[in-house]
């Protein structure tokens, strides 16, 4: 049964997208999508799989939607768009496949008129086909809270009439980054859980990659989509080496590189090439290129820091954010030595976004440590400990502190 449902997962998103567009209502679309899939699960094993499964599902779902609206005239009146639907011919499936209208749904779920925290949830629910409890688990909130958020977001889509449409070519440059941001935020949430006991929530990272793959198929010429998919694959390739058996953090410099996923790296690298070719590179493509350089290095020492710094310069130009400036400073410290890196960090210390930012505190502590400024390093690690969000992050800083205390006690450096 689970296997059959897994087959339907991809189909569910397509069906939902097509129905949401016809009826302008996600609730109705979800309801009849589920009913049509249930009907298929009951009927197909008995009657055999129809010659055009996608068309069968679409026809069944659409009929159920029309029935539902006939039964509930008040609801139907709310969806003024039904008037349009009644006059329109039934959507025709092309060959065995439904017309793919998921792109519209991507833009609706990531619409800037929705609360930022709801966009990722809605995208996982509607396009990745996760259930509400699964989405709630993914974001570490109670199911009831997540259900409320999803209901609120769907209500806004319906009542403010956020359209199910793909922005025109003139709007796309403004709207596409919003969709990419939603997918990337799902990924980063999975990659470094912002709170809780586990460092990585792999399923969420994998869902983000799956969503980016769908988007890449729908928009093959958008190089930033390729860039985002590349970035996620190249980072995700290191997943098995990133944490130790007890869930502890293993830094890039200490990772067993033989455990990196070479298939993901190869796929990511070929996507990076596409993302960087044919015009000025976007921020995801540049970040992917940086990740590719890390993945290509045989070991930490032979990493091409000079080129990484150059790429950070480009990135900082595209997106002058203090977080990127921090990463650039860390790369410069590896190219030119810890003192140069520390000087750069001290210049950034006044940035409000970095003041309570754990990676900033940790980077500063590490550089002070490398410079043998031990009392300052201790204070900086204590600050990093206060700011750490997940248990493995805290454990990592505690290990560093212990190491420092031992160094000081023995009066020599390890």
């Amino acid at each position, binding site marked *: 049964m689970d296997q059959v449902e897994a087959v339907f997962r991809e189909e569910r998103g397509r069906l939902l997208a097509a129905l949401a567009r016809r009826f302008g209502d996600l609730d109705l679309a979800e309801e009849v999508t589920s009913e049509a899939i249930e009907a298929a699960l009951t009927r197909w094993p008995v009657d055999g799989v129809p010659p055009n499964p996608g068309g069968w599902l679409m026809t069944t779902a659409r009929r159920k939607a029309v029935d539902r609206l006939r039964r509930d005239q008040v609801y139907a009146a*709310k969806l*003024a768009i039904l008037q349009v639907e009644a006059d329109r011919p039934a959507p025709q499936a092309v060959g065995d496949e439904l017309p793919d209208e998921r792109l519209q749904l991507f833009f609706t779920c990531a619409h800037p*008129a929705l609360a930022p925290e709801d966009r990722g949830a809605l995208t996982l629910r509607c396009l990745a086909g996760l259930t509400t409890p699964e989405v709630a688990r993914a974001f570490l909130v109670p199911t009831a809270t997540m259900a409320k958020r999803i209901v609120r977001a769907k209500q806004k889509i319906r*009542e*403010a*009439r*956020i*359209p199910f*449409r793909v*922005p025109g070519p003139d709007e796309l440059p403004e709207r596409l980054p919003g969709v990419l941001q939603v997918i990337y935020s799902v990924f980063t949430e999975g990659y470094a859980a912002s709170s809780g006991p586990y460092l990585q929530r792999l399923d969420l990272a994998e869902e983000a990659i799956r969503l980016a793959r769908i988007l890449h198929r729908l928009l093959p010429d958008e190089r930033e989509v390729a860039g985002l998919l590349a970035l996620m694959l190249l980072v995700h390739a290191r997943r098995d080496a990133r944490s130790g058996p007890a869930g502890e953090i293993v830094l890039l410099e200490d990772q067993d590189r033989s455990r990196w996923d070479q298939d993901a790296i190869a796929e990511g690298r070929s996507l990076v090439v596409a993302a960087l070719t044919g015009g000025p590179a976007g921020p995801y493509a540049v970040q992917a290129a940086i990740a590719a350089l890390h993945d290509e290095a045989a070991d930490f020492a032979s990493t091409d820091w000079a080129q990484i710094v150059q790429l950070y310069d480009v990135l900082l130009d595209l997106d002058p954010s203090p977080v990127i400036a921090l990463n650039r400073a860390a790369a410069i410290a590896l190219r030119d030595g810890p003192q140069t890196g520390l000087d750069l960090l001290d210049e950034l210390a006044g940035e409000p976004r970095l003041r309570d930012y754990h990676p900033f505190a940790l980077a500063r502590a590490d550089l002070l440590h490398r410079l043998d400024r031990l009392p300052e390093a201790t204070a900086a690690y204590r600050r990093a400990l206060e700011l750490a969000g997940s248990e493995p992050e805290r454990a990592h800083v505690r290990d560093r502190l212990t190491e420092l205390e031992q160094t000081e006690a023995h009066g020599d450096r390890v």
Partner: protein
Amino acid sequence: MKYMLLINAGELDPQNAPVGCEPEDWMRFDKEITDAGVVVASESLADLVTATRVQVANDGKRTVTDGPFAETREVLGGFYVIDVPDLDVALDWAAKCPGSRGGGSVVVRPVAEF
């Protein structure tokens, strides 16, 4: 679908006129949106010093007070009600409205349908 565009003035100059947009900008916008045939109603509100607040208590007693005066930085200065197909179109008009510039903002509210 009808949407109300609530125009909140941003920074005001000493003459209480919004900073950053000239009367010609408003006239141009008003002509454009009127010519598009989407305007259901629109008004510009008189200066806030002319405002009067009315409240009726549970016992039916009426209280009339001068004001309110601007306690927040943004002050409702006018509105349009437009009839357009969806939120994206309404947001496009809001972005064209001079009231969205110079620190001002336009809040887009769908009109409830019963």
